[in-house]
């Protein structure tokens, strides 16, 4: 008997739009939203009356005054009257979870067309930015020890290396593959920098061992929007939509030092298993993989915990060439946060957009020949919040 939980109304990603990641010094965050939506709405056959849901993150989360009522602010500008509207935030998992909330509302018959949008500026690492970023650490039991976000993720990498013999060269292979894919994306932030080698990664400055500069994602600004609709509406809009075939969500610890394990991403394992169960699929059915890669070690750990290889073999898999263009496990086909760009509060959108474009057969030069199903795994906070989506060419 199939374990698959069929969603009613065939929720699907009908259309996507994203600003090229870059620097937009002349635009505020709200301006970035306006830019995203005006360009998307001009391209899509959609009027305000067609949209009945809006999900956005707070604006300027890392600033001194985040706007936690963005759905009101922005819904008003768009002239929306909605049955579903919310400002929600779970770090990098925000957008994955928005797609899930939208899909469930559509399956429930409550909504028909939900906009999931975001725009962000990577926090400037000045005094205010640092103060704000430091809220992610426990004020008494982490912050006094001088943690940084790279160092907190490095704790996972170090433990993984100690337990399984994962090497810095294998971590570097993730960054090298990301750059190789970025060279095939016209908008990737690091495209103009050309290819990099394992040696280049290892020779870049140490940030927090084992991470070098090129093991870390590249900060920039951007934004985008994903339209989730019923299957019927999606087919009218795009011909070939990306159907939301499987979903999984899990929230583990809050503070990194409280995680249940440093060698395993528990939330990835749980959310991934749920997504495969709901899609009635296994890792063998997935042809494109997008995994949140704020740091090079994370796709290695997540590939294992999603079941694409045995525990401890993620490093060897990353270095095998299978994740590169032309490989049989294409990973982060847009260049990843490592080379496409980490757009601050909007980070987590690009990889869903890419998964959808691959499934819709609209990924241009980097199109994977056989892209019937894509898995997109995003995490947020200190890998506390997890969303796994399985997008499919077939409902």
């Amino acid at each position, binding site marked *: 008997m199939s374990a698959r939980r069929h969603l009613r109304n065939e929720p699907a990603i009908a259309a996507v739009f994203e600003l090229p990641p870059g620097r937009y010094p002349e635009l505020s965050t709200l301006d970035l939203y306006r830019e995203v939506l005006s360009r998307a709405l001009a391209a899509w056959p959609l009027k305000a009356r067609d949209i009945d849901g809006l999900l956005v993150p707070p604006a300027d989360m890392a600033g001194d005054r985040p706007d936690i009522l963005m759905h009101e602010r922005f819904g008003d500008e768009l002239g929306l009257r909605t049955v579903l509207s919310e400002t929600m935030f779970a770090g990098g998992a925000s957008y994955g979870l928005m797609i899930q909330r939208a899909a469930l509302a559509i399956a429930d018959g409550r909504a028909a067309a939900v906009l999931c949008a975001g725009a962000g500026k990577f926090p400037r690492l000045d*005094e205010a930015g*640092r*103060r704000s970023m*430091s809220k992610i650490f*426990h*004020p*008494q*039991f*982490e*912050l*006094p*020890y*001088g*943690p*940084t976000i*790279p*160092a*907190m993720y*490095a*704790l*996972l*990498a*170090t*433990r993984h290396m*100690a337990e399984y013999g994962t090497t810095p060269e294998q971590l570097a292979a993730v960054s090298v593959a990301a750059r190789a894919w970025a060279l095939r994306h016209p908008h990737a932030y690091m495209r103009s920098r050309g290819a990099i080698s394992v040696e280049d990664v290892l020779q870049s*400055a*140490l*940030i*927090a*061992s*084992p*991470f070098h500069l090129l093991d870390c994602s590249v900060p920039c600004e951007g934004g985008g929007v994903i339209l989730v609709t019923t299957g019927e509406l999606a087919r009218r809009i795009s011909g070939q939509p990306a159907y939301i075939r499987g979903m999984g969500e899990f929230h583990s610890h809050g503070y990194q*030092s*409280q995680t249940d394990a*440093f060698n395993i991403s528990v939330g990835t394992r749980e959310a991934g298993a749920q997504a495969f169960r709901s899609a009635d699929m296994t890792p063998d059915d997935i042809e494109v993989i997008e995994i949140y890669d704020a740091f090079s070690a994370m796709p290695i750990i997540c590939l294992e915990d999603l079941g694409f290889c045995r525990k401890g073999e993620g490093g060897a898999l990353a270095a095998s060439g299978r994740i590169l263009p032309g490989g049989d496990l294409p990973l982060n086909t847009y260049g990843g946060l490592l080379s496409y760009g980490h757009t601050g509060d909007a980070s987590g959108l690009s990889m869903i957009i890419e998964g959808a474009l691959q499934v819709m057969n609209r990924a241009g030069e980097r199109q994977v020949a056989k892209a019937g199903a894509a898995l997109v795994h995003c995490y947020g906070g200190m890998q506390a919040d997890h969303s796994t989506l399985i997008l499919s060419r077939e409902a």
Partner: protein
Amino acid sequence: MEAKPIPAISAASAPYWEAAANGKLLLQYCDDCSRYLFYPRSWCPHCYGGALEWRTASGRGAVHTYSVVHAAPCVGFEADAPYVAAVIDLQEGPRMMANIIGCATETVRVGMPVEGIFEARGNIHLPQFRPVTA
């Protein structure tokens, strides 16, 4: 955040910091589920029991994982960089974050035995760890 942060003591953590000032590492012990906790809380996060008592910990443990931080988060830590941010497996069971001090950063290893010491910072004493000397 220019200087090294000094933790603001909360009601739940006051005994922990008071003991640290006297050179002792205290841990909460849950009588209901018979285990030690970290960090200090008002209830046990495993059984939600409130029967927590403070016990003096051995101060012994081993490095569970670590990172040598080269890019410091603020001016206060810049002079220390590179320094070791680590998570310690305490002998009593729970894990806690600390710096490994008193040794060259390149000698730190996962599994290395460490012992607690206390760093005076502002008006508090911060539990830290150093390699166990034979």
